């Protein structure tokens, strides 16, 4: 039990394309070496233009996603509008920092489009809420080094939704193949201003 982040195993990546974003994650849930399930959900829908994926301990991912949905639902009811991705990022950051000394063992990956302008937005943060916003891609996972390498080589600006799907899929699949505790298939969501495409990939099932 040397690293609690590696107990369940996960890989999440998000990328920016032309007027779209994509977010992808593997599907394995394990208890160290033992694989428990191969259809575990790691990406959660917050609203129809905002998705969050989590790397780290599965129980904390589920708890944090429920807490976030709770706060977000209240926000949307009170303000009668969809939240901006940037404001959502700050909400997540505050939630994680509120547990500064009893932290959640997770790192979130946020991907979404601005509700009015449809500008793409991606961000990630560390386990206590330090945000990182980028223009190209964000990665988190037990194979994050591999993901960084894959994304850096494959990503190009202004990819169309179909090309973005190919790019993010190749990046994720090849990275998790070099990692023992992540893989067993992948889920890829491509978010555009008027539709969301969800695809499930079959990769090396080991």
């Amino acid at each position, binding site marked *: 039990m040397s690293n609690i982040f590696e107990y369940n195993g996960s890989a999440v990546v998000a990328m920016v394309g032309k007027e779209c974003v994509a977010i992808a994650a593997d599907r394995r849930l394990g208890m160290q070496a033992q694989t428990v399930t191969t259809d575990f959900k790691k990406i959660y829908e917050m609203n129809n233009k905002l998705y969050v994926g989590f790397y780290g301990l599965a129980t904390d991912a589920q708890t944090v996603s429920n807490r976030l949905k709770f706060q977000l639902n209240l926000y949307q009811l009170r*303000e009668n509008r969809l939240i901006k991705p940037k*404001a959502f990022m700050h909400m997540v950051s505050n939630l994680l920092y509120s547990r500064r000394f009893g932290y959640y063992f997770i790192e979130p990956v946020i991907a979404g489009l601005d509700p009015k302008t449809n500008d793409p937005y991606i961000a990630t943060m560390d386990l206590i809420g330090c945000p990182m916003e980028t223009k190209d891609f964000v990665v988190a996972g037990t194979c994050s080094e591999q993901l960084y390498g894959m994304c850096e080589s494959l990503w190009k600006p202004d990819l169309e939704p179909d090309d973005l799907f190919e790019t993010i899929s190749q990046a994720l699949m090849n990275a998790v193949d070099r990692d023992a505790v992540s893989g067993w298939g992948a889920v890829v969501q491509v978010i555009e201003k008027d539709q969301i495409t969800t695809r499930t990939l079959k990769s090396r099932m080991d």
Partner: protein
Amino acid sequence: MTERYSFSLTTFSPSGKLVQIEYALQAVAAGAPSVGIKAKNGVVIAVEKKHKSPLYDETTINKIESVNDHIGIVYSGMGPDFRLLVRKARKIAVQYYFNYHESIPVSQLVQKVAAVMQEYTQSGGVRPFGVSLLIAGFDEDRPYLYQCDPSGAYFAWKATAMGKNYINGKTFLEKRYNEDLEIEDAVHTAILTLKEGFDGQMTEDNIEVGIANVDGFQRLDPAEVKDYLAAIQ
């Protein structure tokens, strides 16, 4: 040590009214006149700042306060109650910014301030606030003007007057208001509305004017007020 009453002092009368709130509204109606007008591209709020004696140093006290750089607030009624509500409103605005890194929408601030005012009509051992507030602000795309009453009720207005003479003020505004007012016309109209019930000479030191537009909320300084007054005389 600080024992609180566990029962409310604001209770229903047989006719179904909360008499304390009615009395609070009387305190508001006896307060200095204030006015608010929403234009196409901004909101103006103005208030009379007459003092009982020429010995007052009117430059130190402001009746128009900003809650954050987008939202301004003015009152009719009891000054000390206003100060407390401004403190609470500022904390609410800054707390929102801490959570979302976004400027609080005017309607959200109004709801939260009004909730505070309502608490004081139901909590133990306290009395309602003796002020009605006018909250003016410009959200991302459009201007808003809200009134908050001692009961905790809030209303969105195109134009309104509060305090002494408010009935005449509102009648005046009903005649003068139209949807195509620009902010400059609105300031002019607001000052004229105050002038209706003004005793004596109106100068840049005995009224205050604030404007909320796309660039934020600003209280006008006396020199700017003087220019608007010159246009009226």
